[in-house]
């Protein structure tokens, strides 16, 4: 599997997805690079029934879960380091993606199951691909799409009213 070509073509997509998980663009970039390194080093092949992009997305999520606990202990250190860095290196300066920033914050408040299906849909995945990545049925995707999109709309309407 030529993961290099896929990573080169779709890196911004993987980075955006990782951002919805980490809610921190620097951590998202680290997460994606770690997955790229692992998949290229291990010369993985894609499991049957899953397209390579979906496999990478799933790998990013699994890697995020694996590192979740380690990150908890590093949070305070990261914050300290970030304060010491010049402005041009701060996460906010790097992103410059205001719409995505707002959406990521709103998705986080909806919970992980909503955040995952909505971000995957926003990234252009079909219901079937979302079901394959999340290991749920397309019926569940449909039900979450309906429930979570209504919640998302309410959040934006609340912000508009504020």
């Amino acid at each position, binding site marked *: 599997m030529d993961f290099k070509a896929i990573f080169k073509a779709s890196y911004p997509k993987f980075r955006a997805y990782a951002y919805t998980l980490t809610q921190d663009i620097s951590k998202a970039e680290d997460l994606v690079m770690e997955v790229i*390194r692992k998949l290229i080093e291990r010369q993985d092949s894609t499991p049957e029934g899953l397209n390579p992009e979906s496999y990478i997305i799933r790998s990013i999520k699994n890697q995020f879960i694996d590192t979740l606990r380690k990150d908890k202990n590093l949070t305070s250190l990261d914050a300290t380091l970030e304060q010491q860095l010049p402005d041009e290196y701060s996460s906010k300066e790097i992103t410059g993606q205001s719409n995505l920033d707002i959406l990521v914050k709103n998705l986080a408040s909806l919970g992980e*199951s909503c955040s995952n299906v909505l971000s995957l849909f926003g990234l252009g995945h079909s219901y079937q691909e979302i079901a394959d990545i999340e290991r749920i049925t397309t019926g569940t995707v449909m039900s979450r799409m309906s429930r979570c999109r209504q919640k998302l*709309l309410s959040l934006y309407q609340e912000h508009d009213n504020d």
Partner: protein
Amino acid sequence: MISDSNPSDEEIVSFVDGELDADRSLAIETALIGDEKLQQRVNQFRKTKDLLIEAFAVADMETPPHIMAQIDEMRPSPREKMELSRVHSILRKIFVGFRIQYVIPAAAFSLGLFLNPVLIPSSNDQSVNDFLTDQMNQIELRGSREVTDLLSSIETRIDIKEYLNARAIQNGAEIYSGASLEVDSEFTILLLSPFDGTATLSEEVGEAVEQEIASVKISSGGYISFPIMKVTDQSSLSLIARLKSEDVEISQLLYFDIEN
């Protein structure tokens, strides 16, 4: 079936996203004519679709050149070469100091190893590989372990390669870490033990705070089944399965969403 006058939210969202089949889409399109309330519902879902696609438009940007360069520099690890050199090293260790008087005991020992699976069938008919259904949920443990042949007293190091493939079993389905468990529904955690020792299952209840759920003795090649559990009032569940033998300790974090 769609009730033309009042399609469900699931049907409307699928219609908006182009995921509904042609017949059903046509039924909604027909129902939309002159139904302002339905038009409003459709527009609300369209708004969220636009919002999501617009926010994720950054994903269509080009990959920055410095990232392209970093990816180009990455190389597959020379796993095969390393393994061959390790085998060579092990063989050299075995044969250094090998004496002629060891030949008979060593041969007897080897014959015993060879015949053991034939003469004493394993209580578990399936090999570890039979359970490798999903690469992403395995934790692979590689290393070596010192083994002493009791007959010849020859000490050798053998390669070990073990897999943990922990998953939840709920309503007869296998649910892997990262997926969802149902609220108020019984489940257990199942995994295959790669060695003799003990297995502990804990719940992560706070930052670096774990609460032990169960601890059981385990034997190599056997299933480890923890007690039946049920989640009632939380949105997620973090479990840690720890397996410990005399010389090895491995763990796997399992994270589940809890779905109503």
